[in-house]
């Protein structure tokens, strides 16, 4: 929709160049697929990140670097690597968007993460794959943080005004893991009610479960050894109290808890099996 209060659009590079000073009413513009989908009466100026010209994907033996401005379509097109069995999660998480493939053509990975919705599948993906976020301040200085710590609540994250997400590093160690994926939505291909990902070291053992969409922010539980059903249930209950589940029109909290436990156990059982 038209954002009628926007007075000006500037290239994001003008900020780094010192031509533009960040002020109230400014917003980074990535794909714009969320910004233009809701009224934004408080915004006055958009700073277009496309101008940054970042390389969308850089793959190396160390892992995969995803630029914040990489589109969902470009990420979905990433062919994966045979030695990275967990890269199938990329496809699954892209398909977990309610948004259509046409929106993928412009929506970005960074935009999804910075939106910080519970049902943000790029948050699920990068958290489950133990991603590291590279955050850039207005002065150009970079800091890094684990994906898990970035989102702080529904539509809330750690970014300070003017800070931006530069890239996400997905370490090869995580991509080499075996993984299992489960998702529930209230309609076919709808918005996620719960999205769970489990990963386990190729040789078995250490098990990591990432719960998202069911909770306002992602929750991760790490086991040094493969847990049994009971241990899993107990740790889940500790990590997510009953009032820790998200409540919105895409699923009642008690249902989200129910599904989380159901899928968590399925994932545990699936990954406890012998490596394929």
């Amino acid at each position, binding site marked *: *929709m038209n954002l009628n209060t926007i007075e000006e659009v500037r290239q994001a590079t003008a900020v780094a160049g010192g031509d533009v000073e960040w002020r109230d009413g400014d917003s980074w513009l990535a794909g714009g*697929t969320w910004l233009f989908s809701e009224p934004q009466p408080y915004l006055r100026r958009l700073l277009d990140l496309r101008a940054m010209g970042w390389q969308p994907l850089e793959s190396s033996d160390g892992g995969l670097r995803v630029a914040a401005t990489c589109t969902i379509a470009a990420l979905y097109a990433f062919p994966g690597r045979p030695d990275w069995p967990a890269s199938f999660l990329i496809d699954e998480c892209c398909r977990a968007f309610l948004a*259509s493939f046409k*929106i993928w053509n412009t929506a970005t990975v960074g935009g999804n993460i910075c939106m910080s919705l519970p049902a943000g599948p790029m948050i699920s993906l990068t958290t489950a794959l133990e991603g590291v976020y590279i955050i850039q301040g207005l002065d150009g200085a970079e800091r890094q943080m684990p994906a898990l710590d970035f989102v702080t609540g529904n539509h809330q994250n750690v970014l300070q005004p003017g800070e931006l997400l530069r890239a996400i590093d997905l370490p090869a160690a995580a991509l080499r893991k075996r993984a299992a994926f489960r998702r529930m939505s209230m309609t076919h*291909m709808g918005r996620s009610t719960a999205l769970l990902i489990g990963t386990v070291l190729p040789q078995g053992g250490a098990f990591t479960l990432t719960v998202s969409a069911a909770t306002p922010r992602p929750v991760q539980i790490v086991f040094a050894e493969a847990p049994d059903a009971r241990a899993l249930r107990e740790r889940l209950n500790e990590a997510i109290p009953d009032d820790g589940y998200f409540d919105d029109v895409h699923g009642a909290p008690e249902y989200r808890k129910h599904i989380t436990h159901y899928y968590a156990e399925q994932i545990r059982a699936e990954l406890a099996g012998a490596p394929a």
Partner: protein
Amino acid sequence: MSYHVNGKTFSENPAAGQCLRTFLRELGWFGVKKGCDAGDCGACSVWLDGVPVHSCLIPAYRAEGLQITTIEGLAGENGDLHPMQRQFLDAQGFQCGFCTAGMIMTAASLSAEDIQGDLARHLKGNLCRCTGYHAIEDAIHGVKTVEEDRPGASVGTGVGAPAGPEVVTGKARYTLDTTMEGMLHLKVLRAPHAHAKIVSIDKSAALAVPGVHAVYTWQDVPRKLYTTSIHEDFRVDPNDTYMLDNIVRFVGQRIVAVVAESEAAAEEGCRQVVVEYEVLPAVFDPEEAMRAGAPVVHDTSGDQFIRQPERNILIDIHGGIGDVETGFAAADVIHEATYGTHRGQHAHLETHCSISWVDEDGRLNVRTTSQSPFICRDKLCYLFGLGLQNVRVFCDRVGGGFGGKQEVLTEDLTALAAINTGRPVQWEFTREEQFSASTVRHPMQTTVKLGATRDGTLTAIQMRVVSNTGAYGNHGGETLYHACSESVGLYRCPNKKIDAFAVYTNTLPSGAIRGYGLTQTLYAVECAMDELARALEMDPFDLRQKNVVRPGDPMLSLGEEASDTEIGSYGLDECATQVRDALARGNGVAAPPGGDWLTGQGIAYAMHDAAPPTEHRSEARLRVLEDGAFELAIGTAEFGNGTTTQHVQIAASTLGTVADRVRVVQSDTDKTGFDTGAFASTGTFVASKAVWLAAEALRERILDFAASHTQVGRDMCRLDAAAVICGEVRIPLGDLLQAAETSGHQLALSRRAYGSPRSVAFNVHGFRIAVHRVTGEIIILQSVHAADAGTVINPMQLRGQVEGAVAQGIGWALYERMVIDETGKVVNPQFRNYRIPAYADIPRTEIFFADTHDTIGPLGAKGMGECPINPVAPALANALEDATGIRFHDLPFRPDLIYRPIFEKHGMATA
């Protein structure tokens, strides 16, 4: 900067925050539609350098230098249709056509692999509210369903809609697909409180916003009570509404209207208005609202129509036959339960909108999206004290209605502003306004008590209905009468008792929507019948067959007064047999493997009057044109209901020609005779009847004149394509017209039809479903629908109406849910959060038509626009009980609302 659209270059520049969708429309590419403006519906889909995008999400400046393709640019330069456009024509993959441009732009971008591999995922960003997606799927797969038309044999043939070529090329003009010099835009400020008194309004800051021309408050509008609902007789609804009021009765009620040079300025004006409210206690639940001491929504000084304002009772209805106490005493089995139905939104893709202006003769003109331009005109005349001759209301193509446009929601304010400013004024609802401030299905709580003897004979039916009409009473009374009629009239039983209440609350108003109140109570009755069958250990078909009305039976509910409704044709048995057989046959689709799925099947019956009890009339004017074609002028509007196709087919068949030789002028108070409106399933029953009568009469007149003109015996004359054959001579109709005119004869006439007497239509639906014992997910394995529509005038189109209605029924029963919070606010006023079915959500339904011929309807036909929705939800509820052994009384059956008892009963089975 330059923009390249469909091979043309433009040097205009968009505003900084403008999206591509509105920019393209400003450049004149009206094929780019708005269904949501938020990325959810896909109606705005275009290509950027060949890549499909939702143009409402694209910052316009980013399209600079790219090749932009809209639906208008898809056809070849010589006008050859793109194969996908042709396929949409061949399969008639549209009804109202508002989603079509976006559907085609999306489908045409897909590879064969996308289509074969995962069509559901590729279509998930394109919503269609009309078709139920079956015809769209056919179109994309290249299936041809359109049949060839032959002179005089149009009726019964699947001919395409006359507007088809315009729809698939993006040339069809909907309400806002036009520009006018000097257009102003209107926006309204809406109430943040559910119940409040306005203490003061300061409009000075708003008036100071550059571009703002006028700001209207309750003090600036005619202080006349009226009703927004559209009926031939305004007295069937309460006059309880002011154009703008100083009392707020629901969150979202319009408070102040701002008119400005641009939408942006009007929006800014709304933000600058300062309103001081005195907040009042509000009531949201109808049972609470009826209790003594509850907040009073409309006080006693209002319209006398309101039965008990102090208890918020708009209307209460009590009636019946026989004596239910005796009936229950004679019963071996009694079943009683309360069934709850929720709000549902029409979700027609074209939102409410209108453009009004005063022309050089001083007449008010209103271009609008309405199901009834005539009644809209009458309402505007009343509000502004204008004579009928001083107002013209018309519709071009209407982008869906489903009852939502049986309401005057924008025309009054654009008219006011046009009269006041002397400029054309446009107002377009946002999707959010559509959800939070138009109308919804009346939520009803229906208690049904049934008594039967051991052999299944009904001895008593008792029903209590509480309907929530919301803040205003538009349609509150008539929907309640309808709710109390066929639902109980469907079954023979000597003792019936009904008590029903329509109650005001501080929630958004309910209104007219497909099924019109009956859907809600039929749901209750058909669930109760199923539970009764279970208690009697009887087959649910057998129980119904034993008790349904039979030809010749009166259909009694509220009393035994003489009625104008008759069983003009009876296809119920045949429908039941078709569904029973189809379910028994199965369709080879099994539940997913593994022990997690419970399966079951359920059915429901429905009966629906072919016209409303209120007055309904239509006039058809028919004449021969100089080129030997015919012109049909009729007031009824086309919004995807397909009546236009039906009209031309009926005229063509009667006049011995083909459908495309009948040109239609419609829905314009200046150009056609009166028509009450396209609602209450009257398109076939009333409007088509007028067409049929006119066509029969014109045929006789043509033949009479031809006989006397050629001096050939009348019985030797007949119509043949575009000519009359009189004995040996063949006279082209154009020549005959000339001869007639020279000799002072007219080959033109009009006929009127009325919605009385009325017949009834029948529908039966059956489902076989699988339910997940842990997650509560429901999969529809088989869906079967049988309809008794009398003569089938256009089988393809009728199938489309059934499929669309069934899809809406499935959406209402399984997915859609409007959530209102404790302050009375709609929490999810977006398609993102109020999920209407997408292609992936709708199974193919097997559809059967009963072979009947109605003795009352035109050519034996009766309408089918609304009624197929009625048996859908109860059939699903009954299948759900069959699968799980648990009765769920309240809609919708979303996994998170139903899983708990299912899991408790079955979850541990194999876990």
